[in-house]
């Protein structure tokens, strides 16, 4: 057994686009422990509720994280709507679903790129980000923004999508499927990628449940849990099965995300075909009073919002529990026992979103 060394990892590190700091305790080349310390991105935006009105706060909620920004806005709006018992028009629900799934596609494609970069395949990084741009184009065409949509508001959505655009969107996504085959083919069948991913950072089913993992990380360990089953927005009426894999290693997490890409395209097609006509928003009067928990499935997993309001225009307490936050224990668990050279891989396969963790 060798001597123990502590290697600081981050906050500024080539493979991490975001500042995460880890102290890795090494014995020779093997990791024995990892100690996270966060706070580089901490803004304390949960406290901003006392300074922004509840309808204004949607903008702040969207900026909890720029990757799943739509979902954060959606979750906050749904929580307030639930408290105020607002009936959101059908069409708005479907539009929300479409945007949510588009964000999932763009987030997963982005993840594929970052993961490829972490194991040194820069080509693949470029390829997946190029595909991602086509999704961003659709988003920009429909909502006006590229990463921060600003499309969701309390009581509905801000814009409607015309039937022609919807049809175009489906065609574009069908075409994207063809390109995606190529991308996911490399990830799932290439020998050298497999060498970097298979059997690395294994999280067994029991450990995943014990450590409270969520999202693709949990589903890759064979647990079928997907908050879209709760039936928020229009998911109640769409048919889908959560994607699961059984191995629990980096490769399985990759496979889960690859299959979710196709699932999302399928969900969008379903939503477009069932899209009802009508209004896209309702008028909101008064102020919320009460409290509620709201859960959604983000690209990274289950997210929970807690809103408590006292009947004034300012919300009393707002809390977000983001998926990456719950995945930290699993990440530490996966890191233990793996090689130092695999650290970037393992960290990226849980798809960390640091600004989500720290808010």
């Amino acid at each position: 057994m060798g001597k123990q060394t502590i290697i600081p990892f981050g906050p500024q590190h080539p493979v991490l686009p975001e500042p995460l700091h880890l102290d890795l305790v090494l014995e020779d080349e093997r990791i024995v422990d990892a100690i996270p310390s966060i706070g580089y991105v901490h803004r304390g935006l949960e406290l901003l509720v006392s300074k922004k009105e509840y309808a204004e706060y949607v903008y702040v909620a969207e900026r909890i994280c720029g990757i799943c920004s739509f979902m954060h806005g959606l979750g906050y709006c749904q929580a307030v709507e639930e408290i105020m018992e607002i009936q959101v028009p059908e069409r708005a629900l479907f539009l929300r679903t479409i945007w949510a799934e588009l964000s999932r596609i763009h987030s997963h494609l982005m993840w594929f790129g970052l993961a490829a970069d972490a194991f040194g395949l820069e080509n693949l990084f470029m390829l997946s980000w190029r595909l991602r741009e086509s999704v961003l184009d659709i988003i920009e065409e429909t909502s006006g923004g590229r990463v921060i949509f600003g499309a969701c508001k309390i009581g509905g959505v801000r814009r409607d999508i015309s039937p022609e655009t919807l049809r175009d969107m489906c065609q574009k996504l069908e075409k994207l499927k063809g390109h995606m085959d190529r991308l996911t083919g490399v990830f799932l069948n290439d020998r050298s990628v497999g060498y970097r991913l298979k059997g690395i950072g294994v999280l067994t089913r029991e450990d995943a449940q014990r450590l409270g993992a969520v999202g693709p990380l949990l589903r890759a360990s064979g647990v079928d849990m997907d908050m879209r089953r709760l039936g928020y927005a229009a998911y109640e009426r769409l048919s889908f099965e959560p994607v699961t894999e059984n191995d629990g290693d980096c490769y399985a997490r990759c496979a889960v995300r690859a299959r979710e890409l196709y699932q999302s395209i399928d969900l969008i097609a379903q939503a477009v075909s069932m899209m009802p006509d009508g209004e896209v928003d309702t008028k909101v009067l008064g102020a919320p009073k009460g409290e509620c928990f709201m859960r959604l499935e983000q690209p990274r997993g289950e997210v929970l919002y807690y809103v408590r309001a006292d009947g004034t225009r300012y919300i009393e307490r707002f809390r977000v529990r983001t998926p990456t936050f719950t995945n930290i224990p699993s990440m530490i668990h996966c890191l233990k026992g793996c090689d130092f050279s695999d650290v970037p891989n393992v960290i990226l396969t849980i798809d960390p979103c640091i600004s989500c963790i720290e808010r």
Partner: protein
Amino acid sequence: MAMEKRIEIFILTVDELVSRTRSLHDEGYRLVQICCSKVDESGKAVLELDYTFDKHYNLYNIRISIEEGAEIPSISEIFGSAFVYENEIHDLYGVSIQGISIDYRGNFYKTAMPHPFTQD
């Protein structure tokens, strides 16, 4: 105007917390989150801790109220994932939690001031 909306929450005392958590764990519940909020109760600041559990997509909530600076037992022996929340609550609210399985001793969140969420 808008009706007051309430969620189902079981209010417990600090002593009951660990035993109730253990029985939930044995029933197969999963810890979703621990949330702390500061409320004013007739002029006195009280911290409310909400423990949320989930089983088959149903939530089960426990709430305990403590005073600022009070001590509570940790549940991280029962639910391994609880340590991140407990460290967070310790760093942001200054609640001291006894026996966290992985205790970062206030080095988890690094903020400009200690316990920012209790300040007004």
